[in-house]
């Protein structure tokens, strides 16, 4: 809503938002955990104080943070949740099942609203959720209190701690306001400039965008400084307005500071020490890209070395070769190391399944509990994200199709409550995830029958679990009406399998009639991931690692000089030899525009000519191992989500191919 007016400061705003989403994620993860634990407190006179208190604080933080970035629909829901928990915390109400559901609905609404915001969709309309929350306890009364939701200076606890610490260290806190304008921007005075300037007077602790009374945008900053008011006035000049900021005022009413003393900065020191740092995934990708470039440089070095073999004394050449090999080994380790920093524990994903199970159990009239093990197993961040939906699907299937109704189970001598096990573990280079249920298993005869009808199973072919898996994962085949709400949502088993395989993993199936079903998914611990340009040559798609491409330019055929078999493109002050990929690959020429991907350096420069650039994609690189398809210029293959293989171009090798052609 406000983003359009602050384009000049969009970088700063984007940065704030990144932090905001990351923090919201952390809070919501904890909220989910806590809510599940809170369920046992339904109907109890006294709910678990620690849980309630933690939930209260987290909703409070979510409210403040969301107000700060102007996401009112999030802030308001958080506000109502907070209000109810305040009552609960003071034991003015008892947690009822209805209220508990309300909390779940509210938490879910927060999650959905944040996803919508993150994906830059229309802000979620949470009116109905809010109406529901208002009916809980006497939340209405609490809601009339001025909520800091609209206050851009609503502060997270972390910031508050920093402020108290600064005050304790004898500094004063000043609030500055900066209103950007095109005139100032022309002089180079924008919000980032201002941010940098604060370093000269003290420490910038907090910054937030603010909507001014006139509807414009300004930025508010809290700065801890040893400057006197006079010094601040002089320093602030004409760009900034300022006022002293009282820390005690900003503290939430719940904070204990009743004995007249300013809160001692103990909290700042007592910040729990963890060994974790939060890193933007993009930075890791940058590192990965640099590693990729190093790999390419080393390959070139090796080429050069091989060329020198005849010229250099044998022992010297061998010494160089050994160094080169050492670099190769180190690069492999470095790559591995960077990949490992992308790993996150799978526990959070598993925790979400608890919610799914809870929801489904409610809708289906079945009884189920979730047994989780190995939640600390670490797995690549991208893999976790991609596997979320497939895991959800299998868990949903387990409840919808696997587990029977309590009566049926009891009649079969099983406990009325079914169990679903979610397990994860690492074995060597593989992460193994298992989803098992103690339901009715799979009706292999029925599935086989459908498989035979569809021609997926041969006449007389024995029915094995692998074949059953093939059949249930075949597109368009399902053994039960998937129209029921749970299983019909999201992805089918064919997408589950496709995702697993796209990530380089494999799936296995085990079942015993009447006893249960178990899916085992094996995924590689680390992935070879690269950003790649997707291009077409004579209509066929190819991928080329972005790291290998220095520049992309449209080929102006009039600027191409031809002599003998060579084509040279004038570009800037240099000339670039062209390699037309359709010729190199014996594909028919395409009419229309052509683009050159400039790869390599110096004498090794070349322009690969392609027809179209389709875009930039993150790809999972698969090696091509079979000798029948190991051809020069192709380093591997990937898949872009449609199940079709796309070949990956090997820039360095193509340059060599080009040069080889020139020599003959």
């Amino acid at each position, binding site marked *: 809503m406000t983003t359009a007016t602050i384009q000049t400061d969009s970088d700063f705003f984007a940065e704030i938002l990144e932090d905001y989403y990351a923090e919201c994620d952390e809070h919501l993860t904890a909220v989910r955990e806590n809510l599940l634990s809170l369920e046992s407190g339904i109907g109890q006179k006294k709910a678990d104080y620690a849980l309630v208190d933690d939930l209260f604080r987290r909703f409070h933080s979510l409210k403040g943070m969301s107000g700060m970035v102007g996401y009112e629909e999030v802030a308001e829901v958080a506000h109502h949740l907070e209000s109810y928990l305040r009552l609960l915390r003071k034991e003015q109400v008892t947690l009822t099942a209805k209220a508990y559901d309300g909390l779940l609905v509210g938490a879910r609404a927060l999650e959905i609203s944040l996803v919508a915001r993150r994906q830059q969709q229309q802000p979620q309309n949470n009116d109905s959720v809010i109406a529901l929350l208002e009916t809980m306890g006497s939340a209405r009364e609490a809601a009339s209190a001025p909520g800091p939701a609209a206050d851009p200076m609503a502060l997270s606890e972390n910031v508050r701690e920093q402020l108290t610490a600064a005050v304790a260290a004898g500094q004063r806190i000043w609030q500055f306001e900066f209103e950007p304008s095109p005139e100032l921007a022309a002089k180079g005075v924008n919000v980032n400039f201002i941010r940098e300037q604060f370093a000269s007077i003290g420490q910038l602790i907090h910054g937030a965008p603010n909507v001014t009374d006139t509807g414009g945008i300004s930025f508010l900053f809290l700065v801890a400084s040893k400057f006197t008011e006079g010094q601040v006035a002089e320093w602030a000049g004409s760009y900034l307005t300022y006022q002293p900021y009282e820390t005690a005022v900003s503290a939430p009413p719940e904070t204990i500071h009743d004995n007249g003393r300013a809160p001692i900065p103990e909290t700042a020191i007592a910040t729990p020490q963890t060994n974790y740092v939060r890193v933007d995934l993009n930075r890791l990708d940058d590192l990965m890209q640099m590693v990729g470039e190093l790999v390419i440089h080393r390959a070139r070095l090796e080429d050069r070395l091989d060329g020198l073999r005849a010229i250099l004394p044998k022992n010297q050449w061998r010494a160089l070769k050994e160094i080169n090999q050492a670099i190769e080994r180190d690069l492999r380790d470095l790559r591995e190391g960077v990949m490992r920093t992308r790993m996150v524990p799978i526990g959070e994903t598993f925790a979400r399944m608890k919610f799914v199970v809870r929801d489904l159990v409610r809708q289906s009239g079945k009884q189920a509990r979730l047994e989780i093990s190995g939640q600390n197993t670490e797995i690549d961040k991208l893999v976790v994200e991609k596997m979320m939906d497939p895991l959800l699907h299998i868990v949903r299937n387990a409840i919808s199709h696997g587990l029977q109704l309590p009566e049926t189970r009891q009649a079969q001598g099983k406990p009325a409550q079914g169990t679903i096990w979610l397990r994860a573990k690492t074995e060597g280079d593989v992460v193994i995830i298992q989803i098992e249920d103690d339901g009715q298993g799979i009706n292999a005869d029925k599935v086989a029958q459908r498989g035979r009808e569809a021609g997926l199973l041969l006449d007389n072919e024995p029915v094995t679990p692998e074949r059953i898996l093939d059949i249930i994962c075949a597109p368009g085949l399902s053994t039960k009406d998937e129209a029921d709400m749970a299983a019909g949502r999201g992805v089918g088993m064919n997408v589950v399998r496709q995702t697993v395989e796209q990530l380089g993993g494999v799936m296995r199936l085990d079942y015993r009639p009447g006893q249960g079903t178990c899916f085992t998914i094996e995924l590689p611990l680390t992935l070879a991931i690269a950003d790649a340009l997707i291009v077409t040559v004579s209509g066929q798609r190819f991928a080329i690692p972005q790291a290998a491409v220095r520049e992309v330019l449209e080929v102006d055929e009039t600027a191409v000089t031809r002599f003998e078999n060579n084509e040279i493109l004038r570009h800037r002050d240099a000339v670039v030899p062209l390699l037309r990929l359709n010729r190199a690959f014996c594909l028919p020429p395409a009419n229309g525009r052509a683009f050159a991907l400039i790869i390599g350096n110096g004498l090794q420069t070349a322009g690969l000519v392609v027809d179209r650039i389709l875009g930039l994609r993150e790809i999972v690189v698969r090696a091509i191992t079979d000798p*029948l398809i190991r051809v020069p210029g192709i380093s591997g293959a990937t898949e872009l989500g449609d199940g079709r293989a796309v070949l990956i171009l090997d820039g360095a090798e193509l340059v060599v191919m080009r040069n080889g052609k020139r020599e003959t």
Partner: protein
Amino acid sequence: MSDNQKPDTYILFELAETNYAVNSQDVQQLEMVDEFTPVPNAPDFVEGVVFLRGQVIPVINLRARFRFEKRPFDQRTRLVVIRDTERVVGFIVDTAREFVTIPAEAIQLPPESVAGMSGRYLDGIATLGNRMILLLNVAEVLKAAEEIELEEIEIEKEGVVS
């Protein structure tokens, strides 16, 4: 059947009006024929590559490989995915529908007259009812596939010399 012997079950497929069989142990799966990604500068009997179970595997057009006339794919065309030790490759065949048991006594060695070039691809010839079935030696077909280019070059050379 001893431990290191293969089972006596086979998957039957048809190629140019002839019945072939591959041992069921060597077959990883059967697939409908979808689109393949052509690989530039690969041998001409390699139709392309395909993603299967997370692996990039070559697809061999068995008609082209055995120098039969190629024909367009249809509803009956199948991709027989073969696993030979570490390698996985796909064979395109005209059709594959049957899973049969061929007892060892029904299998004869290929007669001397089909030995040589094509003989080495066969493990034997079986008679089942009134059908004659050629038992394919998968390992040899694959091994030879790599050598074929070399062979072709040599044949060309011989042609020049004679």
